């Protein structure tokens, strides 16, 4: 026994088994996703839906209720999303990319985030500074302190901002915070900077250890050998910028 549902598929009325309905609706949803962002997506989906209705009604013949096989046959004729990818999707994809890049252009307007990289209390001030394009967050901080001393409600304002402004957690958050378009290049740049910062930290930790234990030849360069596959393609030469003035007395190659 199967429940039936009454549907209108592209202008064709059907009484359809529940499992067949689930299949059909999942298929159409996948396709909608697939074409989303491409030119005239609504129209494409409308055409596909009415064609699907036609196919199903043909498959059904004189039967009263549409079953799953009818739906599956119609899907086979129309093509699964994987098959659609084959010929035309690359074109749709280009369109999609265009659409996306233009929407990213719109997004170039900054968003307010708290900056976890430059925080004293919670990063509200540095977030405000990047939002208003002020180079140094210290001015905002001074303003806050002054306002507090003048007896303003700035402490309250600060706490409210702390509570409602999200922290810039991801790379794209940070790009949006700085008002740079979120595209692949910028993200790659950001990740690269982050990795360099990380390797700086590793370097520092290792050089501290070196001092402590007087390890003459701690092969700390192995640390970034592990990092390297992550940055492949980002044209990072793999050299660690040395912060400390200590000179490395051995060649990195010796340990590879």
């Amino acid at each position: 026994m199967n429940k039936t549902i009454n549907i209108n598929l592209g202008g064709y009325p059907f009484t359809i088994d529940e499992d067949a309905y689930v299949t059909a609706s999942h298929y159409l949803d996948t396709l909608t996703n697939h074409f989303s962002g491409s030119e005239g997506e609504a129209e494409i989906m409308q055409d596909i839906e009415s064609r699907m209705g036609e196919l199903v009604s043909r498959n059904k013949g004189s039967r009263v209720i549409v079953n799953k096989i009818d739906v599956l046959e119609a899907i086979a004729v129309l093509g699964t999303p994987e098959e659609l990818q084959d010929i035309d999707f690359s074109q749709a994809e280009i369109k999609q990319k265009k659409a996306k890049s233009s929407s990213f252009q719109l997004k170039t307007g900054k968003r307010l985030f708290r900056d976890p990289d430059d925080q004293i209390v919670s990063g509200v001030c540095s977030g405000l500074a990047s939002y208003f394009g002020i180079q140094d967050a210290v001015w905002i901080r001074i303003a806050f302190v002054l306002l507090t001393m003048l007896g303003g409600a700035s402490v309250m304002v600060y706490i409210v901002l702390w509570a409602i402004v999200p922290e810039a957690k991801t790379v794209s958050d940070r790009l949006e915070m700085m008002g740079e378009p979120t595209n692949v290049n910028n993200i790659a740049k950001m990740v690269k900077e982050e990795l360099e910062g990380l390797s700086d930290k590793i370097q520092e930790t290792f050089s501290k250890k070196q001092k402590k234990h007087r390890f003459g030849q701690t092969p700390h360069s192995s640390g970034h050998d592990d990092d390297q596959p992550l940055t492949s393609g980002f044209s990072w030469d793999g050299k660690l910028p040395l912060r400390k003035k200590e000179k490395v007395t051995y060649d990195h190659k010796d340990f590879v």
Partner: protein
Amino acid sequence: MKAQMRKGVLDMCILSLLSTEAMYTSDIIERLKKSNLVIVEGTLYPLLTRLKNGDLLEYYWMESNSGPPRKYFKITEKGRSFLADLKDSWTEINEAVSLTTQKQS
């Protein structure tokens, strides 16, 4: 590569099919399937929409005795001149390719 090439000629084939008569989408698909240019129907709808939005095609609704009205596509004037251009460059490419490949063999 093969898919790329096929994609390139699909536009021309559709325009060429429609240059003689207005056709219903599934009839277009039927014809293209016969020549193995299209395997699944779904690929054609984005293409037709794109050509239509580029004013190369237009459509009208036709009543059907079985079910809702059908969309019939036909070529526009702009489509015709575009098709002529396409055909010209197709011939050029064809000649160029056969010339080069003949020299190689």
